[in-house]
């Protein structure tokens, strides 16, 4: 056996060799012979009728090959961009699902909506021609906020969607909740806004499409988190290209965070256009273009009420949310604020009755869809905030009220009143661990030190759970999923014993090439260096649903684990033949097949060799070769959770919030690579801190203009915003995934916003502040302090 680096080790990441030496292969690095350049012309208006497009000047410009518009799409009879989820309202009425044409027809519905595609020899020529396109708009009033959109008389995006409401969705036992509220000793109420976010992956979106007339095949290279799903949605539902005639490649992708897990109109337009002009075409988005076309995240307005008995036990929780969908339904759009939100409102607590009503609303903004966490940060935020409000109003300690309501470790499996059943967890253990790690007992000393400098210090808790590992297909199907959510892996053992894995997940920064190689190294006893992971190409990988929802290790890793088990099982059959023993007597351990109780062994490499050179081989009963495939459909979600504690210092003179300490103790199940898990937690936490303190996508009501349309105005979290984080795991094993894993990609983003805002409110609570909306910017905090009941101290 060679250099086994298995589960629990932290080797350096395999993929970093190429990333850190500038040898990655991103879509924009790819050049095809005869490649033309494409540019999208986008609506400058939030809402307008399209009265006509005059192409003549653009077509006459130097180097122009073609100009395509919505009329051309209609002439070719192409489909609408599909939504992958169909939710229904309380009466079972399906959501309103207006068409989402890949190039606008009749109307534009957000700034950035695509109206034309200009193809020229060079991108400069395409850009110059795009400026010559004359689009005749009849500008209409825009509506961008959900509260405004549902008001009578609001601008209507679609004639057949009254009040702009796509779906009036609900979950839970409304009557039981009302009964509990009548009996409550105390009711805490909270209105809040969950701010709209823009994902901002490092690499902007890009695509190249090519059509080969000789084979009638299309190839699309695209910055996608799920190439097979793009092949299906685009090929089968939009462009009518048979699956075997369409190859989708997502090579190295520079970050996704959800932004790249949708099928975008740009992909369909460029693939269709490549055949029309018989040229490969490349499109690379600018950062500014990404701001008005990458799907946005969050954007809720919520009213919540928590009913408690006199001891602070939660009796019932009621949540009403208006969720912004933007101008059209994106791939997962309506699923995010409903199925990924309502079922998480139980948190880690034993609340017996929960009711959630979500109105899903169209507005003249970029379509909203999943962004890291997707629904679960929103649920965590409203729950963890209102728990603090209740504690404050009832004069209870914020830790104690949580402790009193937590599901005890021995209470698992735990059935919530909102569909999901948690298999495992230990919220009390995570809380206790975090209290120690954050040195909460000495917080008072630190608060006094801050006060001496004229600063207000606050501490905030978030004890949370999430559902990830999307998803059990049967369960998802009942909720409205229009596809399956399993994963697949093929383990190909070469004649010399090296291994290539083809897996349907997509690695765009998560370290899969390392983590998955560790699983194979451990399970097959082969050298870590001798395992390569292949992903992101529908011609090379059998099938897959891609990477999102913290599913890669949970679902993809499980498929991989099953496939390696099959390899071992076949290897045992071969070894039994070679060692002249019964199959049941063959043991496999540390890369060696042996006959139990003897010293007769065959190495993994010898068995692989025999499988491909079957001179001495049981050909009557066994096929040659050593390659196995497995599909895995999870039996349940996994439920990572934990306790995050944030500590902030507020400068009352300027309103600046500084995050001074951050502690996270998370239960992510089995940890394959602790270094990678720590990195995932760090990144997730920083993105959650970004939402809490900095990030805000702001639209102008009326015109629909995006006011925070660049990095000059949209504030991303930066390294100097962060203290050194204390991150630890306190794991219970998932009971239903093969390796006990739960997933860790989103926990940081889910746990952190509430911890940070609870800390800010704590810092200001002596001034009568009970809530702060995100992001807690200096301007917002200063204004709160101006309106606060007590004078601002600190000179």
């Amino acid at each position, binding site marked *: 056996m060679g250099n086994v680096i298995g589960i629990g080790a932290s080797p350096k990441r395999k993929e970093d060799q190429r990333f850190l030496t500038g040898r990655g292969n991103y879509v924009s690095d790819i050049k095809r012979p005869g490649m033309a350049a494409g540019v999208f012309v986008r609506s400058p208006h939030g809402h307008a009728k399209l009265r006509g497009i005059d192409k003549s000047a653009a077509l006459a410009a130097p180097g122009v090959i073609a100009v395509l518009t919505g009329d051309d799409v209609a002439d070719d009879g192409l489909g609408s961009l599909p939504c992958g989820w169909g939710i229904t309202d309380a009466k079972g009425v399906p959501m309103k699902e207006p068409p989402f044409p890949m190039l606008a027809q009749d109307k534009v519905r957000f700034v950035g909506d695509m109206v034309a595609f200009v193809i020229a020899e060079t991108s*400069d020529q395409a*850009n*110059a021609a795009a*400026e010559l396109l004359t689009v005749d708009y009849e500008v209409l009033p825009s509506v961008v906020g959900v509260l405004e959109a549902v008001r009578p008389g609001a601008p209507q995006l679609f004639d057949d969607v009254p009040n702009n409401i796509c779906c009036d969705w609900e979950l839970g036992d409304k009557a039981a909740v009302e009964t509990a509220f009548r009996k409550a000793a105390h009711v805490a109420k909270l209105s809040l806004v969950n701010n709209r976010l823009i994902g901002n992956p490092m690499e902007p979106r890009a695509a190249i499409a090519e059509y080969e007339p000789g084979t009638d095949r299309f190839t699309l290279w695209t910055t996608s988190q799920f190439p097979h799903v793009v092949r299906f949605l685009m090929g089968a539902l939009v462009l009518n290209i048979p699956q075997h005639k369409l190859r989708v490649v997502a090579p190295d992708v520079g970050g996704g965070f959800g932004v790249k897990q949708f099928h975008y109109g740009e992909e369909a337009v460029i693939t269709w256009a490549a055949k029309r002009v018989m040229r490969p075409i490349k499109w690379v988005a*600018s950062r*500014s273009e990404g701001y008005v076309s990458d799907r946005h995240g969050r954007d809720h307005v919520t009213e919540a009420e928590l009913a408690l008995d006199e001891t602070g036990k939660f009796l019932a929780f009621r949540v009403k949310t208006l969720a912004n969908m933007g101008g059209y339904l994106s791939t997962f759009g309506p699923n995010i604020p409903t199925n990924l939100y309502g079922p998480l409102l139980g948190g880690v607590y034993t609340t017996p009755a929960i009711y959630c009503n979500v109105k899903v609303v169209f507005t003249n903004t970029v379509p909203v869809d999943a962004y890291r966490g997707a629904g679960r940060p929103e649920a965590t935020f409203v729950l963890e905030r209102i728990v603090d409000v209740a504690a404050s109003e009832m004069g209870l300690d914020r830790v104690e009220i949580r402790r009193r309501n937590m599901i005890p470790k021995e209470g698992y499996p735990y059935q919530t009143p909102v569909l999901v059943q948690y298999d495992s967890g230990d919220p009390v253990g995570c809380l206790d661990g975090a209290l120690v790690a954050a040195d909460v007992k000495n917080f008072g000393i630190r608060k006094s030190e801050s006060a001496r400098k004229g600063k207000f210090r606050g501490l905030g808790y978030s004890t949370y759970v999430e559902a990830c590992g999307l998803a059990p297909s049967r369960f998802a199907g009942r909720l409205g999923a229009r596809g399956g959510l399993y994963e697949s892996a093929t383990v190909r053992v070469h004649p010399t014993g090296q291994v290539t894995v083809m897996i349907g997940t997509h690695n765009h920064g998560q370290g899969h090439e390392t983590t998955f190689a560790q699983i194979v190294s451990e399970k097959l006893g082969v050298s870590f260096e001798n395992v390569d992971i292949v992903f992101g190409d529908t011609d090379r990988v059998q099938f897959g649903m891609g990477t999102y929802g913290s599913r890669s290790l949970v679902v993809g890793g499980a498929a991989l684990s099953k496939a390696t088990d099959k390899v071992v099982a076949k290897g045992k059959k071969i070894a039994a033949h070679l060692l002249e023993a019964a199959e049941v007597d063959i043991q496999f351990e540390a890369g060696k097949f042996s006959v139990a109780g003897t010293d007769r062994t065959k190495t993994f490499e010898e068995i692989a060799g025999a499988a491909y050179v079957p001179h001495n081989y049981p050909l009557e009963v066994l096929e040659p070769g050593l390659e196995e495939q497995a599909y895995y459909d999870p039996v349940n979600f996994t439920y990572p959770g934990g306790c995050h504690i944030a500590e902030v210092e507020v400068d009352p*003179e*300027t*309103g600046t919030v500084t995050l001074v300490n951050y502690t996270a103790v998370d239960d992510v199940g089995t940890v394959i690579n602790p270094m990678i898990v720590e990195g995932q937690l760090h990144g997730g936490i920083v993105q959650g801190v970004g939402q809490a303190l*900095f990030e*805000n996508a*702001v639209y102008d009501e009326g015109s629909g203009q995006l*006011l*925070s349309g660049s*990095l*000059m*105005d*949209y*504030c*991303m979290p930066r390294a100097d915003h962060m203290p050194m984080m204390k991150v630890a795991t306190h794991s219970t094993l998932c009971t239903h995934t093969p390796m006990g894993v739960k997933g860790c990609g989103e926990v940081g983003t889910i746990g952190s916003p509430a911890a940070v805002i609870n800390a800010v409110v704590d810092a200001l609570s002596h001034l009568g502040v009970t809530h702060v909306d995100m992001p807690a*910017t*200096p*301007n917002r905090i*200063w*204004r709160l302090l101006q309106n606060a009941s007590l004078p601002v101290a600190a*000179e």
Partner: protein
Amino acid sequence: MKPFAYHQPNQVPDAAKLLTSIEDSKLVAGGMTLIPTLKQRLASPVALVDLSKLPNLKGITDDGATISIGAMTPHAVVAASKLVQAKIPGLAALASMIGDPAVRSRGTIGGSVANNDPAADYPAGVLGLGATIVTSAREIAADKFFLGLFETALEPGEIITAIRFPVPLKAGYAKFKAPASRYALVGVFAAKFADGVRVAVTGAGSGVFRVPPMEAALSQHFDPSAVAAIKIDTDGLTSDIHAEADYRAHLVTVMAKRAVDAALS
């Protein structure tokens, strides 16, 4: 980016001639504002006149009672200059707060002053110190140079060659960074001279401006407490998605205190 001609003259008069003879030409110093504008196709000059090969435009010289900084001197050089740190530490500190390391390596003092972005840092230092802008044609006092939003007293074809700063008794700069851009949401430069105090504010309005009541109070008593109670009128101050005018007005007072504090420390 749209196509343009590119010139790299070797002498200041040649550069000036190019700028006046080619209509719609623009000079480029560090390019920190111009290049992004070109990339976004928001500007389409016919020609760019690159100043990087002009002699004697880089570097810092000690003139005794004044310091001269060549127009093409990058911010990082000013920030790290032992001379500036010794004689006008507030100016070195200001330079160290501009943008990020890449911007400070490439961006120049002349470019920043000529551009007169309403939220740029250097205009506060130049006006606060009462510096002199030396150009290819003349010398202009800071008080007469900055004319509001991206407007200056520069004539077409006139090129800044250096900025001459009088050495103050004390000077300090305090900047409240706009969260996203890290330009000054409000920046205040305070400088004490034998004959009085100058206070200049950037970021708060459409261009850098002085605050006479603060100057008068600090001339009496150069201490943060002298300005703590001086409130700024919101008239003419900027309101945007990051800060409304009243918050900016409040920050002027806070940053003025901190600038004086920095000058004294």
